[in-house]
């Protein structure tokens, strides 16, 4: 499998280049963002002298390329920093320290990532069930009530912003019907059952937004397959419709669904900002928006890199799975 090995190597190299470029872009963009970082960090009532001290401590006076170089150094070799009373080491890959809280960005990401992954993994299951289910129904049970209702629901999900869906779900399900408690994040390792119950509504809200795309893709891929020669042959031989749908049409759509799923998963890791904000889930997206607002460059760069990493990896995984699911495609 030298072909596969080469593919992985090329992908890894490409990923590194992409991530490097992303970090440069973020550095430049946030360098140009208005807002006196030292003043924001120091507090609104800081004197010019204090602001200068803070700027010096954060190396804000250094030219952009020097700061970027320190950032690269930190990733490769780690960095030492002072807490005032002692010197601490931030081991490689060190993404620096938050301007605002002096926390190690790498640690911050490690505490936030499980939340975002929990949200997106669970939502993925829901959007697959809902989206693919709707897609299969609409290709199979064309025009029946159940199919129309489901299609309507998924489209409504796409059309309504997640902050509206989420809030209404919460008010109705938790507030009025009292079916569920108001969501608050519980670590999976602490209590898997509570973890799931608390994430149910966030999963549903996020999945509703994505489900329609899956429904559409499933449906069109299935129709594509159903029109193929071999299916017609099966039909001619009297193979049952249920079997044709289940064994052939769905399988035919599988490759595309896998591809779309990996993509959606990748972008949702950082893209679930609104869901995390509304439900108070301490994930990457919520933290990132906060960091952008206070121009906390190390946190922004670190988190955007992690998101970019997931997108790129998800795409690579998609390509491999796609190739496995659909042997007609050769890896480029």
């Amino acid at each position, binding site marked *: 499998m030298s072909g596969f090995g080469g593919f992985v190597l090329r992908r890894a190299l490409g990923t590194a280049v992409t991530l490097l470029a992303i970090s440069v872009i973020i550095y430049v963009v946030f360098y140009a963002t208005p807002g006196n970082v030292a003043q924001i960090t120091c507090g609104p009532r*800081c004197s010019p002298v204090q602001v200068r*001290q803070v700027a010096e401590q954060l190396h804000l006076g250094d030219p952009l390329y020097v700061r970027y170089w320190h950032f690269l150094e930190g990733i490769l070799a780690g960095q030492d920093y002072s807490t005032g009373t002692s010197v601490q080491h931030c081991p490689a890959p060190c993404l620096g320290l938050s301007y605002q809280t002096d926390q190690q960005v790498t640690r911050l990401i490690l505490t936030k990532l499980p939340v975002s992954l929990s949200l997106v993994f669970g939502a993925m299951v829901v959007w697959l069930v809902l989206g693919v289910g709707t897609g299969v129904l609409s290709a199979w049970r064309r025009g029946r009530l159940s199919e129309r209702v489901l299609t309507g629901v998924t489209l409504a999900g796409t059309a309504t912003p997640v902050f509206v869906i989420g809030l209404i779900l919460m008010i109705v399900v938790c507030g009025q019907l009292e079916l569920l408690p108001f969501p608050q994040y519980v670590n999976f390792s602490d209590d898997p059952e509570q973890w799931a119950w608390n994430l149910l509504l966030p999963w549903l809200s996020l999945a509703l937004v994505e489900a329609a795309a899956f429904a559409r893709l499933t449906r069109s891929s299935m129709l594509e397959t159903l029109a193929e020669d071999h299916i017609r042959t099966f039909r001619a031989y009297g193979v049952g419709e249920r079997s044709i749908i289940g064994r052939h049409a769905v399988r035919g759509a599988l490759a595309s669904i896998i591809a779309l799923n990996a993509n959606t998963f990748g972008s949702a890791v950082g893209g679930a900002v609104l869901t995390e904000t509304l439900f108070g889930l301490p994930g990457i997206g919520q933290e990132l928006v906060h960091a952008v607002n206070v121009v906390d460059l190390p946190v922004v760069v670190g988190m955007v890199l992690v998101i970019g990493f997931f997108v790129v990896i998800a795409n690579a995984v998609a390509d491999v799975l796609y190739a496995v699911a659909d042997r007609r495609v050769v890896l480029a």
Partner: protein
Amino acid sequence: MRQPSVIARRVAAASVSLVVAAGAAACGPKDSDAKSSGGDSRPHKGGTLTVLNADPQQDFDPARLYTSGGGNVPSLVFRTLTTRNRENGAAGAQVVPDLATDTGRPSKNATVWTYTLKKGLKYEDGTPITSADIKYGIERSFAAELSGGAPYLRDWLIGGADYQGPYKDKKGLDSIETPDDLTIVFHLNKPEGEFPYLATQTQTTPVPKAKDTGTKYEEHPVSSGPYKVVKNENDGERLTLERNTYWSASTDAERKAYPDKIDVRSGLDSSVINQRLSSSQGADATAVTTDTNLGPAELAKVTGDKALASRVGTGHFGYTNYIAFNPKVKPFDDPKVRRAISYAVDRSSVINAAGGSSLAEPATTYLPNQKSFGYTPYDLFPAGASGNAAKAKELLAQAGHKNGLTITLTHSNSKDFETSPEIATAVQDALKKAGITVKLQGLEDNDYSDKIHSAKTEPGFFLAHWGADWPSGGPFLAPIFDGRQIVKDGANFNSGFLNDKSVNDEIDAINKLTDLDEAAKRWGALDKKIGEQALTVPLFHPVYKRLYGEGVKNIVISDWTGVLDISQVAVK
């Protein structure tokens, strides 16, 4: 800060920190409380109090906190030299002793302040609290690593302006003396009769030098108060506080500390917090919030429901939202134009935009409408409820703008309902009637904050607000109107660039007073005098409405913070 989106609140980070732990006053609804909890309304010890908050307690270092009166959650862990009186209404706007035996003994024309600590004070590990620890706590607030607190110690203490904190300067600050373990003496560079107010801030919390871990101290600050931190997850997002067994009620007349445990959960959306408090299910029945007010939409719902309405605490905090002029920018250099705009403003539509008459009171004075600020009512340019367009037009004509005027109003893009677009459009709509065309310039929050606080870039006409660091005229008027506080190369708050010798002299004279009632009267008079210059158009003072869970008792809301004091509430 009064409306949903966490993001909005966070966008407003800069302005929020001025009023962290803000809140104001009034009406502890004790009788309605009796109804809702049925039967025994007396508070008892025990149980767990849940706190549902929007903002995580990211700053939990006493050096970095910017609080009014010691804050709400921080005040459970940090005791300070003095503190706010934990009582309802105006009585709650007074300073009372905390670690110290009195509120401070002034000498040498209020430039030297001496405090004596109570005996038997201990940290959570049982070691005694000494005056040296308080000195050290103050010193470390000067370190650049721990910036964020209020500016007064730096401005007032001799040598404060140049001191860089104990990490860089091991020698310490000479202007704080600790002749023995129980005595601490402060030497100020000018008379400051309000020093007892300053001593309520968390910077006067004792920090044991041996336990100081610099920027990591906030993960587990050493408690001197009734509770200690047993869990601090995700940088203050989830805090669990339990009883500090070394704290003794006999040395602390202020904190009641009824619950056994405090569970702080934050990072929640404001609308979710209010929804949870109104549903009051499970642990939420014994929940309160220390940072989320009822928004207009929620108020509309709550007022229609008697049971819910009985669970709303109303308070007033010293806070003013206003329009600021920069007289260096034309046409605002002309007092007639400034007065014309003052006449034209429609406060009722501004107040509606801010949440309606239940959440905002019209302001015609710059000082908040509370006694402790020395509130002296005046309305120099009466606009009535909905603006006096005729008078405004007349003044504009006199100023040479017969055919109207086109000006730009700068505001922020936050969702705080204070300097946000809703308020700006209400002003825009009102001035239209007076023939003034207002263009809106909305800035992202950091940009806005930078621009309005820089002498070089300050716009001519913008929305602003100011909150009280403590309930007195001093920190309200001096930063805005003292000509010597104009900052050329940093954050400037004297937006009108007022540098009037008579005003400066009066500020100095009042600062010498140690009789705070007398000082309040003089602040009130000074406010009226400054008001004649029409450098600001006061718009409204906010009113805070907050829900609390069904099982929460002993609601105390002071005029100092305006929100229910969690050191007083009971859940049993």
